Every structure is written in structure tokens, then in C-alpha cells.
């Protein structure tokens, strides 16, 4: 309703602009004038013809159903149905691309743009979830860098991990395990992550301290699409619950 009212305003404005056009637009010695205008227009039919075959191919791709989700997966702080589903599959696919085990994987919730809807899941849904062309990399991190990452997690609560579990008690991070073993600050760990976060994006500047970077040559989105299609081939639906990877003790 309010949208229609807004549109009425636009039509009025357009009319004003139209009426305004009949006056001499640029008299000599015009004073400098800046206006904001709204133009309401039909699309140009010649350009629509050029767009048409591309749009048809694109729509066919984007509307292709690749899986079925038992319920809506949404994002949230520390861990979430969407975050756990995505980062668990990223760890699995990264290990497959890497050809050897990786200790853990990380994504931030800012990088997961929309929920996975309940019911049919299309290629388009995954493009909305992950519109960026971020690529997967494997970082080798010192124990001290992992500590900084966990401090960041406790403070901002915007990380989602696979292969790394911890308890937050009184604002302190404890009982940390990586790949099922207690965390050792003197050890180095491998972590799968997007090249965006690896480059210090989303205020994770300390990730730039990594001891090594290995490019997997695959996109984050590509890994999600592949994994869901593989699930569907196996007759599995998309499903994920929260678990005890992060425990908060009040």
C-alpha cells in the first residue's frame, strides 16, 4: 500500500519534469542549477531482444532444482543451522580438492547472505547465498594465530567452524579441540577458508600472519553446488541441526 503511494509520488514528479521540459531549458547566462529527476520509462524493445536469449539461458540455469531442504536453514551467532551445514561441507570438499586432511574450516556469517529455504533448492538460491567469486584456500596457522581467531569469535560471535569446538565460560574460551584433539598453542594447524577472509577481510587481519597459503583453485560457491548435487544423487535431503561444537556456560 505504502509502495503504491510512493509510486504515485514518482508519477507526479515525472509529470512535473515533463511539464518543466516545455520551458526554455538553457537560457543564456543560466545560473548553475542541479536537479534530481525521476523518469518513468518503458524498456527499449531492441535491447530487450538482445537480452532475451541470455535471460532465457540464465533463468533455465538459475531455476534448476538441485536439492531439497527439510527445513529452512538460517544463520546466527557462534553456530547456526545454515553456518554448520555450509562449513561442514566446505571442510569435506576442501579435503577432497586438497587430497589430504585439513584440520578445520572457517566462515563468517557476513559471508552467508541469505537462508536456504525449506523445500526445493535452486542454483539461484545458492547464488543469492554466496554471490561472490571467492576462492577456497588452505592456510597454515600458528597456534597463537588460532588463539587470536578464537578471541575474535568470543568477542564478535560471527564465526562458524567445522572441525573446531570450544566452550565459552564467563567470556573465556576453553576446552578447545581441533580435529577431535585438544588444542596445542605450540602446534601449527591447517584451515580451509575463502581467499577473502584469508586476505584479512571481515576484520580478520591476523589471518594475514599465516605461515602458508595453498590455493585450491575452486570457488566457495562451486563447492556448495557440487556438494548439494552429490547429496541429491545419493537420495539425501539437505538437513542440519545445531550441535555441541560451541557450548556456552552462563
Amino acid at each position, binding site marked *: 500500500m505504502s*509502495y503504491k503511494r510512493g509510486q504515485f509520488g514518482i508519477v507526479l514528479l515525472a509529470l512535473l519534469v515533463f511539464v518543466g521540459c516545455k520551458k526554455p531549458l538553457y537560457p543564456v547566462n543560466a545560473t548553475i542549477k542541479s536537479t534530481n529527476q525521476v523518469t518513468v*520509462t518503458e524498456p527499449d524493445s531492441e535491447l530487450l531482444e538482445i537480452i532475451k536469449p541470455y535471460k532465457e539461458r*540464465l533463468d533455465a540455469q538459475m531455476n534448476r532444482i538441485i536439492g531439497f531442504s527439510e527445513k529452512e536453514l538460517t544463520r546466527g551467532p557462534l553456530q547456526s543451522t545454515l553456518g554448520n551445514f555450509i562449513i561442514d561441507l566446505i571442510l569435506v570438499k576442501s579435503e577432497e580438492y586438497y587430497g589430504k586432511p585439513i584440520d578445520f574450516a572457517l566462515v563468517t556469517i557476513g559471508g552467508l547472505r541469505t537462508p536456504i529455504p525449506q523445500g526445493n533448492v535452486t542454483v539461484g538460491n545458492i547464488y543469492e547465498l554466496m554471490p561472490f567469486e571467492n576462492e577456497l584456500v588452505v592456510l597454515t596457522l600458528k597456534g597463537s594465530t588460532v588463539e587470536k581467531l578464537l578471541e575474535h569469535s568470543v568477542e564478535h560471535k560471527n564465526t562458524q567452524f567445522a572441525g573446531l569446538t570450544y566452550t565459552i565460560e564467563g567470556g573465556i574460551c576453553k576446552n578447545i579441540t581441533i580435529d577431535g584433539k585438544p588444542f596445542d598453542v605450540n602446534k601449527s594447524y591447517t584451515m580451509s577458508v575463502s581467499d577473502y577472509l584469508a586476505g584479512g577481510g571481515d576484520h580478520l587481519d591476523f589471518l594475514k600472519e599465516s605461515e602458508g597459503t595453498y590455493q585450491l583453485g575452486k570457488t566457495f560457491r562451486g563447492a556448495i553446488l557440487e556438494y548439494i548435487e552429490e547429496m541429491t544423487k545419493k537420495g539425501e535431503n539437505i538437513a542440519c541441526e545445531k550441535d555441541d561444537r560451541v557450548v556456552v556456560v552462563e
Partner: protein
Amino acid sequence: MESRREFIKKSVLGLGALAMGGTSTELFAKSKSKKLTILHTNDMHSWIEPYTKGKHKGMGGMAQRAALIKKIRLEEQNVLLLDAGDIFQGTPYFNFFGGELEFKLMSEMGYDAATLGNHDFDNGLDGLAKALPHAQFPFLTCNYDFTKTELAGKFLPYKVFVKGGIRIGVFGTNIEMNGLISEKNYGDTVWLDPIGKAQETVKQLRGEEKCDYVICLSHLGLTYKENPSKMCDILLARNVEGINLIIGGHTHTFLSKPLTETAPDGRKVLINQVGWAGINLGRIDVDFSYQHQPKDWQSATINIVENSWKTT
């Protein structure tokens, strides 16, 4: 549908004729002044179609922009259509077709020139090389050196357009790649100091090329609050003599009117930028004296709204 379009076409033609017969010719006859109409976009980010949701619902769209530009071309004699970069990346059209459609549509609209944004490197130098044959307009850059890359010789530092006898020099300046574009995507491209290269290029345009008006297409970004010494349009304007207008991009800034800065010689430089995603078309009309000196200007930021969205 068709008859409606015809009606609009006729009204536009009629309006154009009215303007020609009434005011403009009279004005030309009396003062011999001339007008240049500069239309511009920046950061269109592969928004081929209008937005279908969110606060920009119904806005933008390349076919919609084309209709507006056609209308203006009927009304105005001397039109320049320019883009300040980041044509690529933002919708699946780019992921699937690599920018080919964006370039085709811009060519169809009659873009005269564009410059390169950082996202135009998103498919690497080969991705850009592959899309480039679909662009029937030049890309201008004076401070990216592609000599050691496969794109050597594909770009111009500047181009001179002659409109109604007025010589307009257009050149491009571009943002530092380091930290913004992944290295594998820009390869051996070298970034040169924009101020130094702009000074050199403007000297050429004002000298040998005898330009009356100089436009810089910039993808440097308007300004950076958190890092005021970072190269930007405002610093470019303050450090280079001889530019009349900077058409900017990168920072996705919605300016409702151009900013005015002062060049080292005390002359005014206009800077404009109209947001992103093709939501707006920028328009600057410049009146020239009979000696081809720019006199007055007027500007408009035109928000494009698809007709069918009025009723839905």
C-alpha cells in the same frame, strides 16, 4: 503496448521539435553558443535488469536506460555517453556470460568511452580480453600499463571527440590494484601514479590536441575518510590543471549534484558520481561561448524507474 510506445515516441519527437523550433535555435542564432550534453554512469555491476526487490525495486535496467538515452538523443544534438568503470560483477549475468552482454548492450546504447574498474579484472586479463571484442567503444586509461600483458595495445590513454565543433578530450585514471585485485587477475599490469600521468595526458590534450574541454573518467573513488591521503578524485582535482570535469566511480557515491574543487591554477573542477547499479543516469549540460569556452552548466541526476512497476 505497441501503440503506447508509438504515442510516447511521437510525444518525444513533438517535444524535441518544439524545443528546436522554439528556444534552442533562437538561442543559437542570438549568441552562437553551443551546448554539450554529457550523460554518464558508473559501477553498473552487471545490473542488466531492474531491481525486483528491496529499496531500489523497479529501478535501473539497461533496456530502461537505453529508452531514456534515446529520448535525450532526440532532444539534444551534442551528446557524449560515458562510463567510469566496474561494469562487471554483481549479478549472475556476469558469472554466466563473462561480461559479453554488458558490453553488447553498452555498444547498442552508443557509449562513446569507458574506463576500467577493479571488478573489470574479476575474470582475469583473459576474461577481459574475451569480452572486449563485444565492446564497440574504447576503454581509456592513462595510468595502467598493459605493455607486458596480453592486453597490450587494447586500450587508449585518451580520445578526442568533436561535437558541434567543440573539441572534447576524454581520458581515464584508475585505482591501484595491489590489495584490491588478486594478483593472478592483473598479472603483469603496472599501476602508474595517476597525478603524474594525468598531468602528462592533460598537457597533450590542451596542447597538441587543442581541446576546449577535458573530462576525466576516474575509477579512483571520490574520497576516503579513513585514509585522507589515499589517491582519489578530490586529490586529482586539486593537483592537476586543465581538467573541467571528473566523472567518478568506485565508492558508489550517490551525489545529488556535482562537487566543485579548485585546481592549482585556481580554476574550478566539477566532480560527479551517480551511485551504482544503473539506478541513475547522470546528466551535465555545458553551454559554450562562440569561442568554445565553457560557460554555464546544469546538472541532473535522473533516477530510472521501469513503467510496469508503477502498478504492481
